[in-house]
């Protein structure tokens, strides 16, 4: 298999996996306003779960690799279970955050949670082999498909792309549904949404679990593809980068987020491989991060809605009707917008 082919398939798989994770976070942060800096934890638990369920029982066949539990399950099961385990973690985080914290405090609580988990997994080696992490995870169906490395990579590209496509379909349906509008209502005003009868705690649980499942599946796919996973792969910087992708692409817009992932994770992160080799190696390593940071700050400053702003299709009514409606809908600033959002939901079939 040629080098270019390998590079192309690797980039494509990374891209699909990053998009999947970013959509999960976009559902939590962009749509609902859950400020979850422990998001990478969901991806990580998915990756670890899939790894130990593929590696088989820890019998030290691979030298010094040490982990607390292992099994050898057939192909789709490790990925499915990884999503499930991540979902359970999502439920726990949602319950932890049910106290309606200030947005930045909510982010810092989850930030602390993420770093604490990293500290524990790194220090307690028998859990997931500590700082060295798990390696030599067998690729799914590698033996049974009987394909060469090149063709196999393309199958993996297709598989992760298909999962992405399916997730997009589900996310579109959720966002257009009355439930999706309820999520946006909570984001705009927790008190206002509560006054209109939206149960924010329930919304948070659903969003957190669903987002976590997407992240868990993305982590599982990633570990099955690169065959290794270690604490270096899930520092807080990874969560921050996904937030950046969402902010650059468009908060609350899945197509925008896809573009944002392309800009941050592919153009900047991978672009560094094309930097001239005459540059000092430390600069090559740090330049992508400096650039992603500057681009994120630039977007927050000049275009906080991102490349593709969120679609507000729930309030699309004809001008004539809008004129008629203004007669009896009081406009009290933010609250009027909120009424539009929730009324739009009622009008399109829930009530």
């Amino acid at each position, binding site marked *: 298999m040629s080098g270019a082919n390998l590079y192309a398939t690797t980039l494509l798989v990374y891209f699909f996996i990053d998009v999947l994770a970013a959509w999960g976070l976009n559902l939590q942060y962009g749509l609902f306003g859950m400020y979850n800096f422990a998001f990478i934890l969901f991806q990580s638990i998915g990756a670890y779960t899939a790894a130990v369920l593929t590696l088989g029982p820890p019998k030290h066949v691979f030298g010094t690799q040490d982990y607390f539990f292992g099994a050898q399950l057939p192909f789709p099961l490790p990925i499915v279970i990884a999503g499930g385990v991540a979902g359970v973690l999502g439920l726990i985080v949602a319950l932890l955050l049910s106290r309606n*914290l*200030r947005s930045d405090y909510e982010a810092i*609580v989850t930030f602390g949670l993420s770093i604490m988990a990293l*500290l524990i997994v790194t220090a307690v080696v028998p859990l997931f082999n500590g700082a060295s992490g798990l390696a030599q995870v067998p690729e799914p169906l590698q033996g049974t498909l009987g394909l060469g490395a090149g063709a196999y990579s393309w199958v993996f590209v297709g598989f992760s792309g298909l999962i992405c496509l399916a997730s997009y379909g589900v996310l579109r349906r959720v966002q257009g549904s009355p439930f999706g509008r309820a999520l946006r209502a909570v984001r705009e005003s927790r008190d206002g949404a509560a006054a209109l009868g939206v149960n924010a705690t329930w919304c948070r649980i659903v969003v957190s679990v669903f987002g976590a499942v997407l992240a868990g599946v993305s982590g599982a796919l990633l570990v099955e593809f690169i065959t290794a996973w270690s604490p270096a792969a899930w520092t807080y910087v990874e969560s921050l980068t996904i937030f950046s992708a969402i*902010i650059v692409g468009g908060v609350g817009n899945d197509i925008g987020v896809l573009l944002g992932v392309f800009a941050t994770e592919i153009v900047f992160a991978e672009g560094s491989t094309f930097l001239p080799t005459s540059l000092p190696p430390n600069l090559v390593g740090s330049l992508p991060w400096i650039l992603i940071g500057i681009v994120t*700050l630039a977007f927050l*400053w000049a275009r906080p809605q991102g490349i593709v702003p969120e679609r507000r299709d729930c309030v699309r009514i004809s001008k004539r009707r809008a004129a008629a409606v203004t007669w009896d809908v009081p406009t009290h600033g933010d609250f009027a917008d909120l009424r539009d959002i929730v009324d739009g939901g009622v009008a399109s079939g829930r009530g």
Partner: protein
Amino acid sequence: MIFGSVSAASEVVPAIGFGIATAAYIGLGSVGYTLQTGITGVINFAYGAILISAAFVAYAVNRVGGDLWQILVVGGATGAIVSYLVNKLVFRRFVRRGVSRFGMLIVTLWAGLILQNILLAIFGGNYLHITTPAGHLFRVLGTKLDTLQLTGITIAVVCVVGLAILLKFTRLGFAMRALATNPDLARASGVKVARVLDYTWLITGVICGLAGVLYSIAVGAFHQTSGNAVLIIMFTAAILGGVGRPLGAAIAALALSIAMQLVTLVIPADLNEIVAFVALILVLLLRPSGLFGVAREADVEVAVA
């Protein structure tokens, strides 16, 4: 074996002594942090990176022969300049732009990460070490502390007392306290807000830089990312003590430092920061206004970044 047996009382006293020694830099940094956040209203998650920048510059000066006092001066100056510039060039603009609280967190996190990567580009990714003579060992209340540790504790205490005098007895300190209590009222009463904020960033920057130098001396080896864990501990102390209350932050930092040393008698030493994380999560979830806080800040926020 993860959990050892609880050690004899003879090990408790040295652990407390070592806790007090680490409280020198943690306490100093926490006091600077709580003042910065209380007065400027910015939750600065680049604080750890600024702290470690000071340590890096101190390292460079130490390499060409700088002694303890010289690297302290250089570190303090670095902290002040970097804090001032980061606020002037980045934070202040975003605050004036009306970016949401969460947006500001993203801004400060990225500012810190950019700083870390600039340090990486200049100094490389190796662990660095500042060489200063440890001096003599002294027996203090049943524990052994060396000259360096005692100097660190003295510097921290002098700085905190100096800050208390500044806040209590000078016009600038009065204006700072006014700004922390009620920014609008302070502005309406003729406080030159922009100037007071500039001074706040400079002064808390000096404190941050000094804490960075003390930290780098105390830990032995440090790295671009070393500031992150320190930041979490200092932030926790600031919240525990109540944002904007230097005395509360100092007490909380002392308690945290001692607790973090005491747990090493029971759990592995590289897990001792868990104390800070658990304290952080619990205090933010249960009592975000701090242990001694009265008023609860608003829980709800409207805008999304």
